[in-house]
């Protein structure tokens, strides 16, 4: 029987390693200042040599469980959205459920939809609980994003992720409305067996990112009956610093509404983990009764939108796990380009 559903726990994780934009620009002879101004990024996260989508998802999910304070055995489904699942064939989710003591009576699937696979995982989890199909479901977005050496993507493609547990009891943020907007748009892709994605350059902008996120926002506002000024915070998918701020401005959101979820300048683009991690940053400060909007974007292309409203239970769990801005401002281990290239396996080693 259909009922209510909302977020009961959330958590994020970013690796400790970082590389500065100027370190990458020095390597390729680009002008650091113009790159930093153009992309509005100063540095990005880099996964450790022993980190991948699975370990990042596990770390984020642990933090979500700390906030949800539920028996992991009661979680009926786990979905991990990523475009960097470590195996081509063997699920990331099976490792995660065994690491966290979830299951084995659990439905698990790995999802992929470029940068919006994490939002998809949230969407499906929410729908499961709303339908009364299960008590709890967890949706995770995590990535160790790929960007070819020397490509513009190399400045932004980073690592991190966030997990959201949906349930029907002890809800910390209700879901008031959702919407999805999807079309076949070839703006960014990666073929099988290829290490790095390709993209359509400027075609990734107006016909892809902006068309989908703006159409999704318009439909979501129309469906929910809310206006931009009704929201305390909004987060758009963050392929760079500029795109989400421009999208928000077009829709009538102010910088004050956008700044909390805009984590890209210190984190980079964590692909499937991008808008979910921005949403997690908003959850870290959202007050009871305040509303927040999350609009994801995945190339190919599509947008999932959510309207959340914090309940009276949210403040009590905000400090139960590390907050994302504290993680981004906390321990940082900076890498040289050579170290970065080795960490990301961009160097050809002998057997």
């Amino acid at each position, binding site marked *: 029987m259909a009922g209510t559903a909302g977020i009961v726990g959330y958590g994020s994780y970013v*690796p*400790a*390693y970082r590389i500065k934009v100027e370190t990458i620009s020095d390597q390729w002879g680009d002008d650091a200042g113009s790159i930093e101004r153009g992309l509005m990024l100063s540095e990005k996260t880099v996964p*450790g*040599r*022993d*980190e*991948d989508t*699975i*370990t990042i998802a*596990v*770390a984020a999910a*642990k933090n979500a469980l700390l906030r949800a304070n539920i028996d992991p055995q009661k979680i009926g489904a786990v979905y991990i959205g990523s475009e960097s699942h*470590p*195996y081509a064939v*063997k699920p990331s989710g099976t*490792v995660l459920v*065994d*690491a*966290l*003591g979830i299951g084995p009576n659990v439905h698990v699937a790995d999802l992929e939809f470029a940068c919006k696979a994490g939002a998809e995982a949230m969407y499906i989890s929410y729908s499961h609980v709303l339908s009364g199909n299960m008590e709890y479901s967890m949706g995770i977005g995590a990535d160790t994003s790929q960007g070819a050496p020397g490509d513009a993507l190399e400045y932004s493609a980073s690592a991190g992720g966030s997990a959201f547990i949906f349930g029907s009891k002890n809800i910390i943020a209700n879901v008031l409305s959702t919407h999805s907007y999807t079309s076949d748009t070839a703006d960014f892709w990666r073929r099988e067996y290829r290490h790095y994605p390709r993209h359509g350059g400027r075609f990734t902008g107006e016909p892809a990112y902006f068309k989908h996120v703006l159409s999704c926002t318009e439909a979501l506002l129309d469906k929910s009956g809310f206006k931009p000024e009704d929201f305390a915070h909004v987060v758009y998918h963050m392929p760079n610093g500029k795109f989400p701020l421009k999208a928000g401005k077009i829709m009538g959101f102010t910088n004050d509404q956008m700044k909390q979820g805009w984590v890209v300048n210190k984190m980079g683009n964590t692909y499937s983990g991008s808008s979910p991690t921005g949403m997690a940053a908003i959850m870290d400060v959202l007050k009871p009764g305040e509303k927040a909007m999350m609009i994801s974007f995945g190339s190919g292309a599509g947008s999932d939108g959510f309207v959340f409203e914090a309940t009276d239970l949210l403040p009590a769990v905000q400090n139960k796990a590390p907050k994302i801005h504290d993680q981004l401002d906390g*321990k940082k*281990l900076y890498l040289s380009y050579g170290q970065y290239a*080795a960490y990301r396996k961009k160097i050809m*080693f002998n057997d």
Partner: protein
Amino acid sequence: MANSQRYTREIARRYRLEAQKFEDGFVCLPNRYVSPDTGATKFEKINLKPTGTILAFTIIHIPADRFAKESPFPVAIIETEEGCRLTTQIVDSKFEDVKIGGKVELVFRKATEEGDSGILNYGYKAIVL
């Protein structure tokens, strides 16, 4: 690790720090059948809390082949709150921060890769707090 079958058998202890607590109080991981001090054979399974204290450490400069690209790296013997002693790699930490008596957190990481086509092995490693 030798193969995917052995890896699968060891998941409980490698992923969830599932240890044995014998009736005489001895806690161990990996598993054994007899407590070394008293010969006790009855035990219960417990999940270790993912924190501990460094008892001893060294910096590995000449590692086994499969860890060659990671050297140099610290390896420590740590003791968990339950009194269980583990040998573990220390990651994401500056060498000068690795000290006897220092507190660590155990985190879930990739341990090794079985070449380019074999399975990925996951388990616990330690980060200095």
